[in-house]
């Protein structure tokens, strides 16, 4: 009887380990979400402190690197493990629409108020970070 139990336990352990190995390799939406959230929170405020042209090039360079990273991340992971995307296209559209809206608001209010980009960076980036955190906890 003990032998049956030990064999069953060994099989369950093995199945668990294999499942973990697959999960580790699967593409995870929270990784790019963290990146883009941090990008917005950390880089957008720079427009309040540096020249728009100079800082704009920095932001464009980081955004280009981020886009390359995101594309490579999904392409390399999906070559071996394919999973249902947990962040659907409508969520991405909603997030991007929100960023555009906040960006336009920062631009418009920047004429009359100070630190609108700092506020805009926080308002646009935090939803990305919150969603990333929620997804990370579900893994």
């Amino acid at each position, binding site marked *: 009887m003990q032998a*049956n*139990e030990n064999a*069953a*336990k060994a*099989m*369950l352990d*093995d*199945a*668990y380990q*294999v*499942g973990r*190995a*697959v*999960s580790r*390799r*699967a593409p995870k939406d929270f990784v790019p979400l963290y990146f883009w959230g941090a990008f917005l929170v950390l880089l957008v405020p720079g427009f309040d402190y540096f020249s728009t042209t100079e800082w704009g090039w920095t932001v464009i360079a980081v955004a280009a690197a981020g886009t390359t990273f995101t594309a490579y991340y999904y392409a390399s992971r999906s*070559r*071996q*493990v*394919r*999973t*249902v995307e947990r962040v659907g296209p409508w969520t991405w559209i909603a997030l991007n629409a929100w960023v555009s809206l906040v960006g336009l608001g920062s631009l418009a209010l920047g004429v009359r108020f100070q630190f609108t980009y700092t506020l805009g960076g926080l308002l646009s980036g935090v939803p990305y970070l919150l969603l990333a955190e929620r997804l990370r906890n579900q893994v």
Partner: protein
Amino acid sequence: MSHPRTKLDGIIHNPTRLSLLAALAKADSLEFKFLRDTLDVSDSVLSRQIASLEEAGYVKVKKGYAGKRPRTWLSLTQPGSKAFEEHVQVLMEIVG
């Protein structure tokens, strides 16, 4: 009352097949070479086990290309998913 081991699925009970289904249960589909390396088995062993599971209707095999390279993708069918869950449940009953 019968011992839970009598409820074990004979097709899944093979350790490689159980690991294979455990891996497929965690994704929509997995690439053959990734599965081979993860399970640490040879191509021929994996192919044999896949054939048995495919015959039982537990896995689906899809062949395609990534660029010019041929790729084989495997996924769990609905009966396969159900059978795997039930098998794991029985193993847990045995462990207690």
